[in-house]
Every structure is written in structure tokens, then in C-alpha cells.
């Protein structure tokens, strides 16, 4: 404890005066009465103990003395020196990637970091704290927070988000939060190189809390499967990051029948990978590989794959108008332009955009037919009406003008009309037919055109009940139209647990935990999987270090916490007590 204003010591005169006054005050006035018989009995009852009685008699003096002494102390401005985190502004960057779940000494690195944060939160001494979590989109959980309770509850609520830390993005983001103050940035992660830190700013001190020691990790590096007529073929790549040979058990299980298809002991050499392939496995909807092995990081010992066609490529007929290609490119969809005569020879699984009607029967992959090359168009005039369909989830068709239309296919389902004439049709196979050339309509000038193309491609490329594979927390726009009665999609985990829900037309956000998920809306069901990013399958050990100007001095600094408010509070309480004593005694004496 120290004093800020020792000069105020002279005020000690005040309590001394009161003390002196007490010394010279009148003593008991003697009074002779007939008999003290009753008084004695009265006082005997009051006299619990002589000591207490003494206190009782002098309570007022003591209270006054204490109050005055405290007042003197308060004027001296006492404070407590306590250790606190250096820096005026504290930023904590918390890595919430999956690698944080690696276990060392019986607890995950994440838990260890949480504990350390809890410990540090005690030393904040009222300094503003900003708490960030990493991810594709860095999140600010706390901004300039000084309330320790709120900070601690925020720390308590931290959870691993599984997605990779995007460290450079994170550091850039952190830099944007810097003010002109002394700032201490704490990075709770596994591995950061000194060279990765932006060290231009002198007032910033970096504290990196890394993974303490070697963490043994064996992971399923890759897990892929293809479906053919003979059955499923599986490729597994196991990776051993440890310095010693590892033995384990690999199990591949069918997701649909829950049947174990492969169960093999594996030996992975030190610091090496092991490739395994299995052929002619029974056909199944999906596969799940599990590696039973002793290591410190279990999240990457499991991987799942859904065996469904997902068509990646998009081919556009070269004879189509340039606007089609441009529209695809506007939506960031890579397209390959194919000369009109070669369209028929495409063998790959791809979405074909063409005006050759013959492709509807020839192509194995879904076709988006824009216009027909085998018929002539008839003039039409009217308003466009659409069915409720996934392709129109984002595309508003009302204001489009269509000058003429080709004859329709009688056997196909019509999903859009121009004044009762079929405009857009869908085949049983899933092909989409737009019965107008680009030149016959002003549609390409509307923003709905690229959106329609994107929706159509999305729909055709994916098998109807499989949306794809996502990274944890990945956000993506999907053309999903929920059942009318439900109005929203609900995400359930493989085990049937509710995860989250998605408003119709809202942005799809993948769950954070890797695994298989089902997207449900009424009777509609769509599957997708969340898998760890490759970076998250590798754990790097990192050192804990500090860089920056103030780090040379010390991590901690002493902070003077003033005690004046507490003293004032005590004085007020004492005054209340005095008042009470005075009240009980009666104000007259």
C-alpha cells in the first residue's frame, strides 16, 4: 500500500483534537442517593462483561475516532499496488480452429488457453479488453470491455469452431483495431511464426501462447470414394506426424447400412503417409472411415464421404450468345466454351448449356437448353408467370419481355409460362429448357438472368438430395426452396440432433462440427457433409513468446488501485453507526 498525498498528514490533528477533548471531558458526576439498590440490579443486567460495557460506554468516541482516522487516511489517497497486464488496451485473439482440440496433459489446448485467459482476466485491472475469435469471418466477442464478470462469462462461453484460423486475415483484422495506445495483443493459438506478425507498430506488444509441447497426431489425410458399376472404390491416405511408427485399426463403414466394410490393422511409418485403397466394396450412399489409434488429436481420425455425383464443370455451346458465358462468369462459375460441333462428344460429367435439341437425348449429363435449333419461333405477347420452383428462388421473372417462343415439348413439365404458352420446361431427367433464344428476350439485361443460370446449374449439378461438402461454418448461397408449409430448413446431425435452422432464401451456413448432416424441410431431405480443412489435420507445435517494445521490460506492470471509494464507504457506514448509537442514547446526553 502507498499514499498518493502524504502532505495531507497534517489532518491527523483533527482526530487528535477529538481524542484530547475526550481526555478532558467531564467524568462521572457523583450523586448521592438514598439507595443504589435498584440501580445496581439495573446495571448488573446491562453489564454483560466489563469489557463490553467499557466499549458500550465509549462506543461513540471509538466510532468517531475510527471515522476521523479513516478520513485522514482517505485524504492521503491510499492505493494498492497490484500486478496487471501491461499495456493500455488488451486484445485477445483466440484461435478456435479444430487443432485447438488436441489434447496435451489431459486437457485440450483450448481448455488450457481458456484457463490462462481466466487467470489473465484477474489481472486486467480495469483495462479495456477486446476479445476476438478466428475463422473465415473474425468475430469480435467483446469490444473494449472492462467488466470482469462479463469478460469471464465470455471466456466461459468460448467454443471451438473447427474452421481454420485464417491467421493472416486475423492479424490484418486485429491491426484495424489498434488505437494510438499501448496495446498488448495476446494470440492464443498453436503455432505462429515471429515473421508472421506485423511488427511495424512500436506501441504494440505481441504475446503468443502456443502449443506447449509435441503433440502426437495421426490423421486421415484424405478419404475419397467413387462409385462404379462394380461397386465403390475407396482411397484412404493416412498420415503420421509423429517421430515414431504408429499402429492402429482402420475401419470403413457404410453410412446407409451401418455395415463394416473394411476393418484392417494399419502400421504407419514415422513422419510418413500410408495410402490404402479398397475396391469393389458394396454400393452404398456414403462411407465413414474411422482410425482407431493412440494420438492426441482425435478430431481428424474420422472422415466421411457421400457417394453422390457432383458435377463440377460447366460447358457452354460456343454458338450461344456471349451473354450466357458472361452471366455464368458474373456468378463466379468457371465455364468452358465448347464449339457447337463438339458438344456431342463431351463425356465428362458436366452441365451442358446449348441450343442443340438433340443433346437432350444424347448427353448423359444434364442439359440446359436455351432455344431450339430444330424448330421456328412463334411470336408471343404477355406476362410471365412461374411455378414455385427452386430455380426461381432468387430470380424474379415478372418484368421480362419475351418476343417469341419455340414450340414446347409436350411430355415435359412446364415451370414458366408466357401468357399460357410454355416458356421454361423441365424434363424428367432434370434438364431445363428455355424455349427462347437470348436474342428473343430482354432477360439477360435483368439481374435475374445470371441468378437463374446459377440456380439452374446448382440444381442440375447436384444430385437432388446431396448439396455438397462444406468446411466448418462455411457460408454459401444455395438455391433451396423450402416446403411452403414449413417456410424454413432445419439442419440435423447424423444422429438426429437438431443443429440450426435456415430461413427460406437465407444464406446457408454450415455447422461447425465435422460430420454428416441432413437438411430437412417437411418431407424434403438433403444431405451434406462438413469436413475439416486440410490445414486442420496437421498440428504444429509452437512456442510461447513475446515481441514488442514493452515486452523487454516485463509482461506485467504494477497498477495503483485507489482505495479512496472503499474508505469513503466505510466512513459513511461509521457515521450511520454513530448516528444509531446517538439515537439509542438519546440526543440529550
Amino acid at each position, binding site marked *: 500500500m502507498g499514499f498518493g498525498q502524504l502532505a495531507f498528514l497534517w489532518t491527523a490533528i483533527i482526530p487528535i483534537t477529538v481524542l484530547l477533548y475526550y481526555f478532558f471531558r467531564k*467524568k462521572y*458526576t457523583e450523586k448521592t*442517593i438514598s*439507595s*443504589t439498590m*435498584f440501580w445496581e440490579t*439495573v446495571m448488573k443486567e446491562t453489564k454483560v462483561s466489563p469489557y463490553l460495557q467499557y466499549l458500550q*460506554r465509549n462506543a461513540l468516541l471509538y466510532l468517531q475516532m475510527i471515522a476521523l482516522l479513516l478520513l485522514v487516511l482517505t485524504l492521503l489517497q491510499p492505493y494498492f499496488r497490484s500486478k496487471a497486464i501491461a499495456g493500455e488496451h488488451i486484445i485477445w485473439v483466440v484461435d478456435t480452429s479444430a487443432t485447438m482440440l488436441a489434447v496435451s496433459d489431459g486437457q485440450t489446448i483450448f481448455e488450457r488457453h481458456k484457463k490462462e485467459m481466466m487467470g489473465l482476466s484477474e489481472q486486467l485491472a480495469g483495462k479495456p479488453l477486446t476479445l476476438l475469435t478466428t475463422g473465415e469471418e473474425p468475430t469480435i466477442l467483446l469490444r473494449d470491455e472492462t467488466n470482469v464478470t462479463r469478460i469471464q462469462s465470455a471466456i466461459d462461453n468460448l467454443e471451438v469452431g473447427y474452421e481454420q484460423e485464417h491467421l493472416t486475415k486475423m492479424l490484418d483484422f486485429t491491426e484495424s483495431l489498434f488505437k494510438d495506445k499501448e496495446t498488448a495483443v495476446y494470440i492464443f493459438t498453436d503455432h505462429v511464426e515471429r515473421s508472421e506478425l506485423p511488427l511495424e507498430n512500436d506501441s504494440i506488444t505481441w504475446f503468443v501462447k502456443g502449443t506447449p509441447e509435441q503433440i502426437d497426431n495421426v490423421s486421415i489425410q484424405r478419404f475419397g470414394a467413387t462409385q462404379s458399376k462394380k461397386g465403390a472404390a475407396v482411397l484412404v491416405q493416412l498420415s503420421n506426424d509423429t517421430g515414431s511408427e504408429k499402429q492402429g485399426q482402420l475401419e470403413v463403414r457404410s453410412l446407409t447400412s451401418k455395415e463394416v466394410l473394411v476393418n484392417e490393422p494399419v502400421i504407419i511409418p514415422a513422419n510418413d503417409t500410408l495410402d490404402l485403397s479398397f475396391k469393389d466394396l458394396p454400393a452404398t450412399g456414403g462411407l465413414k472411415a474411422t482410425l482407431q489409434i493412440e494420438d492426441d488429436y482425435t478430431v481428424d481420425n474420422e472422415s466421411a464421404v457421400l457417394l453422390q455425383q457432383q458435377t463440377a464443370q460447366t460447358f457452354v455451346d460456343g454458338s450461344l450468345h456471349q451473354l450466357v458465358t458472361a452471366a455464368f462468369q458474373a456468378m463466379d462459375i468457371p465455364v468452358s466454351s465448347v464449339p457447337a460441333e463438339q458438344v456431342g462428344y463431351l463425356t465428362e460429367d458436366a452441365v451442358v448449356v446449348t441450343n442443340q435439341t438433340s443433346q437432350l437425348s444424347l448427353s448423359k449429363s444434364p442439359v440446359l437448353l436455351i432455344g431450339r435449333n430444330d424448330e421456328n419461333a412463334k411470336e408471343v405477347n404477355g406476362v410471365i408467370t412461374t411455378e414455385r420452383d427452386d430455380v426461381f428462388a432468387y430470380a424474379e421473372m415478372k418484368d421480362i419481355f419475351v418476343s417469341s417462343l419455340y414450340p414446347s415439348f409436350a411430355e415435359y413439365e412446364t415451370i414458366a409460362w408466357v401468357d399460357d404458352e410454355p416458356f421454361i420446361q423441365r424434363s424428367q431427367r432434370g434438364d431445363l429448357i428455355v424455349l427462347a433464344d437470348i436474342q428473343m428476350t430482354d432477360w439477360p439485361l435483368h439481374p435475374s438472368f445470371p441468378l437463374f443460370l446459377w440456380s439452374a446449374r446448382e440444381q442440375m449439378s447436384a444430385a437432388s438430395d446431396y448439396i455438397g461438402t462444406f468446411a466448418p461454418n462455411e457460408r454459401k448461397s444455395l438455391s433451396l426452396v423450402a416446403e411452403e408449409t414449413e417456410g424454413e430448413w432445419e439442419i440435423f446431425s447424423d444422429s438426429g440432433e437438431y443443429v440450426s435452422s435456415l430461413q427460406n432464401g437465407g444464406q446457408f451456413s454450415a455447422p461447425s462440427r465435422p460430420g454428416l448432416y441432413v437438411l430437412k424441410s417437411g418431407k424434403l431431405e438433403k444431405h451434406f457433409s462438413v469436413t475439416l480443412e486440410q490445414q486442420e489435420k496437421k498440428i504444429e507445435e509452437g512456442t510461447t513468446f513475446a515481441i514488442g517494445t514493452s515486452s523487454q521490460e516485463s509482461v506485467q506492470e504494477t497498477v495503483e488501485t485507489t482505495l479512496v471509494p472503499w474508505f469513503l464507504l466505510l466512513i459513511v457506514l461509521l457515521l450511520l453507526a454513530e448516528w444509531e448509537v446517538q439515537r*439509542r442514547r438519546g440526543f440529550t446526553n
Partner: protein
Amino acid sequence: MSKPFILPEDWSAKIGRLQIATKSRLRGHHKGSHRSMRFGSSLDFSDFREYHPGDDVRQIDWNVFARTDKYFIKRFLDEQEMRVHILLDSTKSMLEEKKWLLARQLTISLGQLVLGKDDRLSFATPSDEKMVPFRRKGAMYRKAFTSYITNLNEPINHSSFASQAARYSAKDCTVLFIITDGLEPMEEWEKALRLLPRFSQDIRLILVQSTEEVAPQFAGDLQLIDRETQSRVNVSVSSRVVEEYEQKRQKHFMELDALCRRYGIHTMKVETKDDISQILFHQMIRSNWIN
């Protein structure tokens, strides 16, 4: 050394018509001015009774014999003296000026009532020194008694009054007046009051209380000193303490009252704030002690 008279000049005249009322039958053998239930030689006629052999022939009413030819004895009421003993508490607790004054005023007034009716008065007060007890009969001693009491030494008695009371009371008295302040422990009173009914059938306890005792007007931190025992008590007076004192005091006197009722002793509380005439003419008459 004569002290100034402590009662008004015309006091004896004022109280002259009053007399002590009692139902006690115990009387002295000497002639007095009080009519007794016995037949005797007073001038007051009572009744006639037939003569039986053995009766005093001098008492035969010859006039009645002349008229009726039968012997009748004429009977008169007897007049006998009353013996009154006054016992005054002279312990130091009585020393408080007003209490001592009032106690003496009461003693003189009662004494004058007794002597004025030609009754026998005896007076005693416990004291360490040998004192000649006052024992006189007849109105002529009124002055003497007054000056005797007026000149009574200030109380210096250290020992408790209750323990000495029995020793200083006279035997076979019609009325026994005890004038005290009652400020002694209950046990001592218990002992004393158990003995006293032997001496008299009609015991009257007059409790003299000073106003200060009844309602203490103390304030501040006081060291109270007991007059008798010199013991000191430090008291920081507060309304609570006074209240408790009040309760203790009332309890004490209620117990004393109960004790007196048990032994058939009449009690009366007099306060120093009241005038002697007020006490005599109102309190005592109302409670039928004098008439």
C-alpha cells in the same frame, strides 16, 4: 440546641379534632379517652342487667328497684387508653432532606394525635447510641414530643432498619406505626414483617418516598453513591436505563405490599412532593387510618 419548628404554628390545633382509628381491641389498662368494648366506669351509660349474686351491690340501680321491685345493675361503658408506638427509620437512606423532614412531620402529627386524646405514646428509632425512648401519656406532653422529634439527630445508622425493627417496637401496642423508606432488600423485610404482628394487631407501614426516587430526573453519566453502604454505581442514564429502574422499583414495592398483605399490615406510600396536610387530611382519612 433547639431547631426551628418543622410544622406550622397552628398545626396542633388543626389536627386536634382528629384521632387514630383502629379496630384493634388491645388496650392499655389505664384510663383513657377511648371508648372500649368493655364495661367500665365511664360516664357513658350502656344498658341494664339483672342482678346476680356476686355482682357489685354498689352498681344496683335503686331507682329501677323502686319502680319494678327487681334488682338491676346499671352498666357503663369503660374508657380505656390506646397505646400507640411509632417506629421511625433513621438509617442513612432517610437522610435525604425532604424525606427526613416529612418522616419527622408525620411522626409529630401522629404523636400529637395520640397524646391529644390522652393516649399513651411511645416512640423509638433504631440507633447505635443509647437513647431514652419517649414514652408518655397525656396532652401535656405534646410540646415535649414535638421538640423531641424536631431535635432528633440526623440519621447516622449504618445497619439496616428492617433487621432492627422488631427490637425497637413496643409490646402490646394498639397501633404500631412504622415510618420508613422501604429501601432494603426483600429478605430483610420478610424477616422483620414476620416478627412484627406479635407486637400489635394493627401495624401500619408508612413508606416515605422522595420524588427523585419515584421519577429520577437524572441525565448524563453519573456515579451514584449509596448513602448507607457508600457503594458506587456508574450509570450512563438513558431512557432505557430509567425505564428499567422504574420497573425494578415498582417490583420491589409490589413485593413489599404483597408481604404486608400476608401479615395483615397496612401500607401507605407518601411522597415528599406532597404536603403534610395533604397526607394527613386526605390520604390517611381516606384510608381510614384516622378519623
